[in-house]
C-alpha cells in the first residue's frame, strides 16, 4: 500500500471516529464527556492534517460520510466507552500502517500517533489487547 493510500485509509477511520465520538459524548457526562470531546477535537485536527497531506501528494481526500452505522447500539455509558475503545484501537492499527508506508519524520510521527490512539483506547476499555489494531 502506498503512503497516500494508507493516509486515505486513516482519513476514513478518522472521519468515522469523529462521528463516533459524537455518539459517545452524548452518552457520557462530566469528565468523561470532556475527554470524549477533547478526543474528537484532536481527531478533527488530524483529519485536517491528513487532508492537506493527501492533497499535497496529488490525490483528492475523500469527504466524510453524512453518517455511519456503529457496530453496536450506543445506548448508555458502557456501550459508549466500548465504541470509543474500538474506534481508537482500530485507528492505532491504521496509523501503524501509515507509519510503515512513510519515511523518516512522517514515520515517527505516525508511530507516536498510533501510540496515542492505543493509550486512549485502553483508557476507555481498561484492558490492552494482545495486538493493538487487530480488532
Amino acid at each position: 500500500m502506498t503512503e497516500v493510500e494508507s493516509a486515505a485509509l486513516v482519513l476514513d477511520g478518522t472521519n468515522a471516529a469523529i462521528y463516533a465520538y459524537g455518539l459517545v459524548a452524548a452518552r457520557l457526562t462530566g469528565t468523561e464527556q470532556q475527554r470524549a470531546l477533547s478526543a474528537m477535537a484532536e481527531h478533527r485536527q488530524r483529519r485536517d492534517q491528513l487532508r492537506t497531506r493527501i492533497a499535497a501528494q496529488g490525490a483528492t481526500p475523500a469527504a466524510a460520510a453524512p453518517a455511519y452505522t456503529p457496530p453496536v447500539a450506543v445506548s448508555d455509558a458502557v456501550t459508549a466507552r466500548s465504541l470509543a475503545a474500538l474506534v481508537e484501537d482500530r485507528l492505532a492499527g491504521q496509523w501503524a500502517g501509515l507509519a510503515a508506508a512513510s519515511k523518516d519524520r512522517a514515520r515517527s510521527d505516525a508511530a507516536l500517533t498510533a501510540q496515542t490512539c492505543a493509550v486512549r483506547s485502553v483508557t476507555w476499555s481498561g484492558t490492552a489487547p494482545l495486538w493493538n489494531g487487530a480488532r
Partner: protein
Amino acid sequence: MPDLLLLTRRDVLRLGTAAAAGASLAACTTASNTGQPQSTPPTPGAPDDPDAQLRVTVSGGEQVLSGLYQYVATLLPANAAAKVTALGVRHDAYQKAISPHATASIPSPEPQSGKDPAALIKRLRTAETQAAAERAQQSLTAQDTELARLIVLAGAGAASAAEVLRTVTT
C-alpha cells in the same frame, strides 16, 4: 450509510496479518496489504535480510521485557500477578512476530526494585514507557514495511500497557 467500522478487503488483509503475526511472520511477509504477491522479500534473519540486526535488537528488547514481567509476577499478590502476566505475554507475541526464528532465552532481570509491589509495578511502567519510545525510534530504520508496522504496533502495545499498569493495584 457506511458502517462505522466498515472493513475494506485490504483492511481485512491487514488486520488478519496483525492477528496472525504472533504465530508466523512468514505469513506476514509474503502477503501484501493489497493481497498481491510482493517481490520476494528476504527471509527474516537470513544473511540477505537488511533488517537482521534490527530484528535481533527489537526482539531482544521484547525478551527482556517478557523476563521482567515473569520476574515481577512471582513477587506480586495473585490478583496483580494475573494482570501483569496477561500484559507480559504480549511481549512474547511481539518477539515471535519480529524475529520468528530466534531462540527465546529469557534473561533474568537484576532484582533492583526489592519486593515492594508498588515499586515493582512502577518498574514495569517505566520499562514499558521506555520501550514505547524505543520502538518508535527503531521503526525508522526498518527497510521492510511489514517489519516497520510490527515494531510500531509493539510500541503502541508498550504505551498502552504502561497506561494499564497505572490501574494495577497491589
